[in-house]
């Protein structure tokens, strides 16, 4: 006997699940004299960090911080960085902070996560000071002041980390048209931006080129997800109903399984809020049959509390 379909505001929630993986993650707080330059540093730090497959890490801005939320009272951003292992994280964090934040005018870089294994920040960057760097321990925390041409770069000695992070949470928006898919994805990303502890690392939070594992070509570890390509309907085994013309994916990394679940729920809820009237047909998710990743985010289970409150 098949399960009854779940439909929210005319949008079908498919009986599928997102398959996610354990990751190591951390949070940095980046500040600057102005919001613009804090954003520049944060955007630079999180640039080219969409997927561990090609970038070595996944990173994005988590949220904007008001001056009264930052360690030095200046405008700032919280960013999250994830890697496949603690070893990788220990490599990418000082590398990116050194190339993208240390170099950015007026910036400072602080730890945004306590506990876990210590990731070197100032402990690694201080050597740029060539002996003129100054350590300052304040109320149990050690900071470094590195003289630079513009003044001083201030950063924490280390940043905490977690190995309970989860990467690869995702959902797919199946829509009647390309504009409808894009509009729905934008609404989802906006809503998911309100959830702390999670990021959407792809450009603007959205992926247009979801992938499957492997390819016909040797050496390609991932290739286009032909089952969800509307132009291949009838050529490959398609997962798309006839009315779907465009599919966009949102990938989520979080500091914990709960953060990813909350983010997915917020995003799917927002898309369902637009409903079938806005051209959204269904919500699906990407997985590998459930044998690769230990975390399974079942769409219908996630949306059950929302579906219960919504008129079908």
């Amino acid at each position, binding site marked *: 006997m098949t399960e009854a379909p779940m439909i929210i505001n005319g949008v079908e929630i498919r009986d599928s699940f997102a398959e996610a993986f354990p990751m190591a993650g951390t949070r940095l707080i980046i500040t600057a004299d102005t919001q613009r330059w804090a954003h520049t540093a944060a955007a630079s730090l999180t640039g080219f960090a969409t997927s561990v497959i090609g970038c070595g890490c996944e990173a994005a801005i988590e949220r904007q911080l008001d001056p009264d939320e930052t360690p*030095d*009272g200046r405008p700032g951003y919280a960013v999250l960085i994830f890697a496949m292992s603690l070893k990788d994280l220990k490599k990418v964090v000082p590398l990116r902070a050194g190339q993208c934040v240390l170099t950015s005018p*007026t910036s400072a870089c602080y730890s945004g996560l306590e506990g876990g294994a210590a990731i070197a920040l100032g402990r690694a960057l201080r050597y740029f000071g060539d002996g003129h760097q*100054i350590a*300052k321990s*304040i109320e149990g*925390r050690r900071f470094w002041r590195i003289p630079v041409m513009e*003044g*001083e770069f201030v950063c924490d000695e280390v940043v905490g980390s977690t190995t309970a992070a989860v990467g690869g949470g995702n959902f797919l928006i199946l829509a009647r048209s390309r504009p409808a898919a894009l509009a729905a994805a934008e609404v989802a990303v906006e809503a998911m931006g309100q959830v702390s502890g999670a990021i959407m690392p792809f450009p603007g939070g959205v992926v247009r080129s979801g992938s499957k594992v492997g390819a016909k070509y040797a050496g390609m570890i991932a290739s286009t997800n032909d089952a969800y390509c509307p132009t291949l309907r009838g050529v490959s085994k398609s997962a798309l109903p006839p009315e779907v013309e465009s599919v966009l994916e949102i990938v989520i990394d979080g500091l914990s399984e709960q953060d990813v679940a909350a983010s997915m729920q917020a995003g799917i809820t927002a898309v369902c809020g637009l409903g079938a009237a806005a051209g959204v047909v269904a919500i699906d998710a990407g997985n590998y049959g459930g044998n690769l990743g230990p975390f399974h985010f079942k769409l219908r289970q996630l949306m059950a509390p929302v579906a219960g409150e919504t008129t079908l």
Partner: protein
Amino acid sequence: MSAYRLTLRAPLAARADLSGINPATLAGLSAQAVAWLTLPYGNGAVPLGDLFEVSQVEGGALMISGDPRLDFVGAQMAEGEIEVDGPVGVLAGSGMIGGRLVIRGDAGDGLAAGLEGGRIEVAGSAGAGVGGALTGDRQGMKDGMVAVAGAVGPGLGARMRGGLVLVGGDAGPRAADGLIAGTLAVAGRLGAGAGRGMKRGTILVASAPEAPAPGFVSTGPHDFVMLALLARRVPELAGLFGDRLGGRAERLVGNRLAGGAGEILVLQ
């Protein structure tokens, strides 16, 4: 939760050594057992009960009535809280590892000497060698925080290795002598000869020092993000300097005669 109050029966006629008397060492002892503890007093020793009336009070802090001849108050304390109502003698809080010592009066010489952790607050002034080294030690205080509302005597922070000392009033001559690391903040005037042999560390002052030790070079005024960070992490420091801890300061680097890279930051 109850603790003890030690009330002096009369002003001390000789110096009394209170080292080893702290909340942790008194925990679990009856008032009678506390009164039987032996205190070095003058050139001999007496039961604590001979000098103090011992009573139980509500709260977690050990309450002691102060006297300028009461030495080593809170020395070596690792945890808990001591509140002294009145002045204390020499070496209060020396070698303290943790906990909180509050002195509602003046403190003698050697306050916080060899401090390794915890907080010491003095409502009055303090004598010479605040945060300095214990006899025979090469280094002064290593960590923790000391806040003196009034003035301090000569030799503030001599050979200090870390931690933070806040001085609400003036600091006597030869502050930061051989200072290795850590931060001294002086809201009043910084006495002559400050920073002789200073290696690293920071002296924060509200006004330009009249006669620092030779060997300091001015790098000019700058905007320091670090000062804004300090102001937010240490509210007492912001309280000491007010809005002037906003970020701009003249930086004097020294002591170059000793190859040092310490600094005196003069708030603008």
